[in-house]
């Protein structure tokens, strides 16, 4: 595995060896090599082994990956704009992580099941979630936007790392069913510090269940650089649990596709869990409420802009003569249309009704809820005929 290695890793200090002269086992690095199939300049780097896993990717499919990344970036930008305009309460941009999310999302089979975090809108898009449904919760119209069973993707998790356990449990279910689908957990670099993510690896390894952990190391957990979570590479965490890991250039959509397919294939064949670290960068703020100028250097952002995942694929397409005017126009049109629909969907979204408050707390009737609902509806009715009626 001799793929090019990204040179600058601003977030990661080299591990400092303990006192010399002491022969105690020192931590070895695994996954130190970064899988890369497209260079930052857009050159296709061939690799005898990983190439096998993307050899079926036709030119057309390359263009389609490009379209996905363009569309999701556009959705992201539109949602950010909608937030700025007061139409959404908050939005967590994925800008810069398009290759990680589309590469992972497009590797999946329909019957795989994804447990995403709040930032994984690109993966949700790949699962067929409607863009309007992506923002429903961020507008405050619902606590989640879609039916997990319709798209085989859970709702977005906000409690950091929690979903890693859900994915592992789901994979226990898959194993129990004797099925060959896979559960996928998505989380960030910060999440690797949470007990839950580590416990998930314990369970996944103990039961050897078909789960893939995909950690998008975007170098930041809000204002904290990844070196606060770990001085060594995130991918190395997995080996201590007996879980093989791969470290991939998360801004290289082909490489992410390849390693995700490898991990999924291993899981399907009974090979157990795999951990993937997709090394990428959060180019935007943590959320629209965040101000990254308070904690990070503009230079760092510039460095990473040079490794932009879309620019990279674009360059490759250009070299391959695939970036025709027609493709550009079609992609643009698709992105425009999706953005238009998203905007329209948001603006026309009906507000929830007050008594929706009490829906779905339980799946069966509950005396406490019924009573409170009854009282609150009487309360609302008590305003009827008064001047405040219109307010309801």
């Amino acid at each position: 595995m001799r793929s090019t290695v990204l040179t600058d890793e601003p977030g990661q200090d080299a591990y400092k060896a303990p006192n010399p002269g002491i022969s105690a086992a020192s931590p070895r690095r695994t996954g130190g090599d970064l899988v890369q199939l497209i260079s930052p300049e857009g050159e296709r780097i061939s690799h005898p082994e990983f190439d096998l896993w993307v050899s079926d990717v036709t030119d057309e499919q390359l263009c389609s990956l490009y379209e996905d990344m363009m569309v999701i970036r556009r959705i992201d930008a539109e949602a950010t704009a909608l937030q700025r305009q007061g139409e959404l309460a908050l939005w967590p941009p994925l800008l810069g992580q398009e290759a990680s999310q589309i590469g992972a999302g497009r590797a999946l089979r329909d019957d795989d099941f994804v447990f995403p975090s709040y930032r994984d809108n690109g993966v949700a898009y790949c699962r067929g979630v409607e863009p309007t449904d992506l923002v429903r919760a961020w507008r405050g119209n619902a606590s989640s936007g879609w039916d997990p069973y319709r798209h085989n993707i859970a709702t977005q998790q906000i409690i950091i790392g929690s979903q890693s356990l859900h994915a592992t449990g789901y994979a226990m279910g898959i194993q129990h069913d004797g099925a060959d689908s896979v559960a996928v957990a998505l989380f960030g670099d910060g999440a690797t510090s949470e007990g839950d993510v580590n416990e998930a690896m314990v369970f996944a390894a103990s039961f050897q269940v078909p789960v893939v952990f995909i950690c998008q190391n975007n170098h930041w957990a809000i204002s904290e650089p990844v070196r606060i979570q770990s001085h060594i590479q995130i991918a190395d965490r997995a080996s201590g649990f007996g879980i093989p890991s791969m470290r991939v250039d998360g801004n290289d959509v082909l490489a992410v596709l390849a390693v995700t397919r490898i991990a999924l294939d291993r899981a399907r064949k009974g090979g157990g869990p795999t951990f993937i670290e997709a090394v990428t960068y959060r180019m935007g703020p943590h959320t629209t409420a965040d101000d990254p100028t308070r904690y990070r250097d503009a230079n760092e952002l510039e460095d990473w802009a040079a490794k932009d995942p879309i620019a990279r694929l674009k360059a490759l397409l250009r070299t391959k003569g695939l970036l025709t005017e027609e493709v550009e126009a079609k992609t643009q049109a698709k992105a425009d249309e999706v953005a238009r629909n998203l905007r329209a969907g948001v603006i026309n979204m009906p507000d929830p009704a007050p008594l929706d408050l009490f829906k779905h707390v339980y799946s069966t009737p509950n005396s406490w809820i019924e009573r409170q609902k009854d009282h609150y509806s009487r309360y609302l009715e008590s305003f009827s005929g008064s001047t405040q009626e219109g307010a309801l």
Partner: protein
Amino acid sequence: MSKLTFARAINAGLRKSLENDPKVVLMGEDIGALGGVFRVTDGLQKDFGKHRVVDTPLAESAIIGTAVGLAYRGYRPVCEIQFDGFIYPAFDQIVSQVAKMHYRTQGRVKMPITIRVPFGGGIGSPEHHSESPEAYFTHTSGLRVISVSNPQDAYTMIQQAIASDDPVLYFEPKRRYHDKGEVDETADLSTALSMEKARVVTPGSDVTLVTYGPLVKTANDAAMAAADEGVSVEVIDLRSLAPIDFQAVEASVRKTGRLVITHEAAQSGGLGAEIAASITERCFNYLESAPVRITGFDIPYPYSKLEMHHLPDLDRILDGVDRALGRGNSLSGLEG
């Protein structure tokens, strides 16, 4: 009808659930070959296999968190938390995931998870083995919480809990595990009393005494002792702690006008507070005296040589009954 210990009754109920529904899976620490530290799952792994009765690694958050994933996949996990005091590492998964998933997904994802918790004191254990954490969960919207007080209910209600599409915390009074009682294993579940309903276990007319779990037996004993003194105590076993069957309590208090509540958990913010407040709201005009709470103190569960002082017993309950009746009691003459 057969005479079973509490622990065997739960075991029989679990067995029935495992037999009836292939989606039922038991998971926890030491529940396999050992059969659990209280032997409640004795023999089940042997009979249903390691895939249905799963010894998990030692991590409570993961036990509940993976149960959430299993529920997502259509399973009905039954998780054992080895002792009350070990449920806290799983608190986040219970409160933020198990309790909220159905609401979060607008009813699309059900969480038919049962969490079995041996709880309460009185067995001479060291720290963390005698807690009564039920109020943390009854204050958590989205959960159902039940507690059982006799082998028959233990047998029936564990099956009801497992069959429920809502998550259920099932609190087992560990000091009663060895108590025996008649259990009808043939009884039809569909005609059994709903697990949301309380039950009058001793009828009476002077004072209503409300409790659940381990103290139902103590409360009945107290009622008998009171009867000897000519006081008629109506004992209500709540069975369901969330929601509480306030109608049942209300009906009793309208009759007696007096209420005593007893539980092992600390007084401040315990279930007694909710019961006293709700019943005062619902039948203020019927109350002859303030509801009385006889509970554990607001202290960490004490070391075992002192636990009998912490736990409500027959005498303390009777003192509470006297207070409710305005008869001479330990606080007579004290204001406020």
